[in-house]
């Protein structure tokens, strides 16, 4: 599986970027460089590593350099300085040093792209759009059609293969764009604000489908967005950019819980943390095991073994089963729910509302590490986890 490594990547727009680069190295700021040399700094000293099968989000406002950085990865924009390395198929490709032909091959087979305004070819049918990359690869027509049909089904557009893009709605068009990106078999997918041009409802639907797809299809995704909620929702990790620089990098929760700068804090302020905060973060971990029993509240307790694995639950002294949180709507008897440590608290809140308001156990593998009561959730939401 592929991974991508960026090291000290700069992009400076202008006639003599070396001059501007020198100024930056001497500590000049963005505005100073622009005033003195007329050069615009697009991206400044970016380093990070995208792990395989990760959905890595670059987030920032317009003009923050996020799209430029994304385009550096397949060299639609040539970085001024720095190296970008792609590890795929057991070999390393130095993208920044690649010549025209090897760059073309990388684009053809390793890295594909999805665009903000879909960028579908208006003269091609949906199927022809989807198989465009394969056509460039020189795959023969029957094979191409087969693959196109398969991917059109994957993105839920059965029966639209012979339509033209102009006949489809925005959401459907981006499904075509996504299918085209997936069709080449490239394991790295660059997504440039793919859902920004869509209606809010369609947008959420597409985000969910993207997450499902990624679970199925094993891709390494670099995803650009200006929408924090989107970033928090789809991202395994997020990097936040401001004025060409990387301000913070971390998991959605780390960013919500611990914004490093004012800029990030401003962003995060209005974000809904309930999808991001995990059970482990808000859980009450300060519990005592007394004679293999843990008391959760006045009525509820659980029995654990020596490895702190839960054996049996009790409600008012009556033995009850311990069931996973996800099953709450199919549990008929009284039971105690448990969640994994990474479950977002929004799920716990939903289960508590629908099933019972008793504490929910938090497990790491099978070991009990804490439990979540109403007060933990409230505290977590109010303080975004910091009051721990």
């Amino acid at each position: 599986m592929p991974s991508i490594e960026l090291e000290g990547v700069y992009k400076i727009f202008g006639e003599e970027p070396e001059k501007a680069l020198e100024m930056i190295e001497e500590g000049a700021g963005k505005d100073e460089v622009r005033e003195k040399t007329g050069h615009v700094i697009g991206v400044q000293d970016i380093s990070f590593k995208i792990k395989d099968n990760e959905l890595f989000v670059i987030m920032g406002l317009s003009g923050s350099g996020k799209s430029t950085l994304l385009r550096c990865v397949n060299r639609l924009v040539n970085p001024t300085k720095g190296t970008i390395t792609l590890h795929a198929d057991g070999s390393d490709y130095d993208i920044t040093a690649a010549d025209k032909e090897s760059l073309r091959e990388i684009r053809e087979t390793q890295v594909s792209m999805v665009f903000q305004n879909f960028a579908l070819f208006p003269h091609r049918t949906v199927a022809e759009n989807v198989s465009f990359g394969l056509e460039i690869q020189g795959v023969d027509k029957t094979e191409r059609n087969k693959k196109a049909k398969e991917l059109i089904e994957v993105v839920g557009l059965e029966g639209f293969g012979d339509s033209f893009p102009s006949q489809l709605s925005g959401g459907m068009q981006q499904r075509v764009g996504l299918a085209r990106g997936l069709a080449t078999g490239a394991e790295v997918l660059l997504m440039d604000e793919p859902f920004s041009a869509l209606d809010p409802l369609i947008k959420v639907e597409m985000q969910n489908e993207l997450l499902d797809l990624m679970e199925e299809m094993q891709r390494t995704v670099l995803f650009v967005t200006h929408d924090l909620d989107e970033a928090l929702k789809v991202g395994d990790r997020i990097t936040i950019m401001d004025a060409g620089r990387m301000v913070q990098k971390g998991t959605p929760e780390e960013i919500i819980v611990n914004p490093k700068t004012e800029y990030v804090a401003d962003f995060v302020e209005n974000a809904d943390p309930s999808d991001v905060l995990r059970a482990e973060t808000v859980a009450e971990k300060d519990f005592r095991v007394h004679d293999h029993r843990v008391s959760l509240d006045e009525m509820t307790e659980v029995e654990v073994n020596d490895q702190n694995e839960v054996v049996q639950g009790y409600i008012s002294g009556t033995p009850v089963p311990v069931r996973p949180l996800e099953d709450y709507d199919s549990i008929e008897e009284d039971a105690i729910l448990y969640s994994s440590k990474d479950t977002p608290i929004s799920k716990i809140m939903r289960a508590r509302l629908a099933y019972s308001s008793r504490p929910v156990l938090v497990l790491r593998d099978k070991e009990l590490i804490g439990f979540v009561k109403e007060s933990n959730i409230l505290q977590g939401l109010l303080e975004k986890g910091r009051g721990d």
Partner: protein
Amino acid sequence: MSKMNLSLKKLFGGVVSALGWVFLYPLTVAARIGTPLLELPAKPASIPLDKWTVVAVDWLALNIEVFFDFIQLVLNSINEGLLAAIQWVPIFVVNIGGAPIRFPVWSLILFFLLWYLSGQITTGLLGLVTLWLAANFGLYIETTETFSLTLTSALIAISLGIPSGILAGISDTVHNIIRPVLDLMQTMPVFVYLIPAVIFFGMGAAPGAVATVIFAYPPSVRLTNLGIREVPDELVEAGEAFGCNYWQLLMKVQIPVARPSIMQGVNQSIMLALSMAVVAALIGAGGLGGEVVRGIQRMRVGQGFVAGLSVVFTAMILDRATANIGARERE
């Protein structure tokens, strides 16, 4: 009374002329003083571009005659070949009430062709009626001549124009070079290059075709160039992002996306070719234009009008046949 009148008139005339003299004399003096300044440059001109042109044209006519002969041969072959093919299709004549009514088979072919090309049966009917009318106006031969000259010239203009337009679309250098040439071709009064055309190619269809090609070439170039330049950046990026090489990008993305604009250029070229093919009658290209010219020369209003009307019909056929090709594909 009459004497009185006469003297009054004299007096009035005298006053007017006196006033006129008083006011106008200074003006005439001023005009005379100003004359050397106001007068156009005296001939011979200090930059005798006219003479140089003559020298250049004479030199070309003398020294690369073979080249011009070759072009003449090619143009005549295409034109006459096309004409022969068009005229090979027969006309049926039926006597109705003693008057011979002509039914050209072409009108039927045109009906189906236009129906197919435009997708509308009314356009087909237009073709049918037009050709039937032309035949019965007694202008069938002339119409076919104009058709073949127009198509020959347009074919050449387009097959040169689209590649030039593509080059101009992808290269700023080519664009900057070709633009003033196009301006020259389009704004130079058409009669001006009929003269050298005659010198190089003699009278007849060949110089007419050359003048027509020159006139019909620019719109193909301009609209192809525009179409290529207006391909959205994101589509070009998409092509590149999927690994297109330069050639693939051109053939699979830029040209197909620019196609509607290119087809508009084709349409414009054909229409301009027709208008010039009519004017080319002045140098003996014949056809409907010849009828118009004869009508003017002999003051025959009716002959000129009927020929002019046939030109209009021909224009409508050509326009409808080519206007929808680009648009139809989007449906």
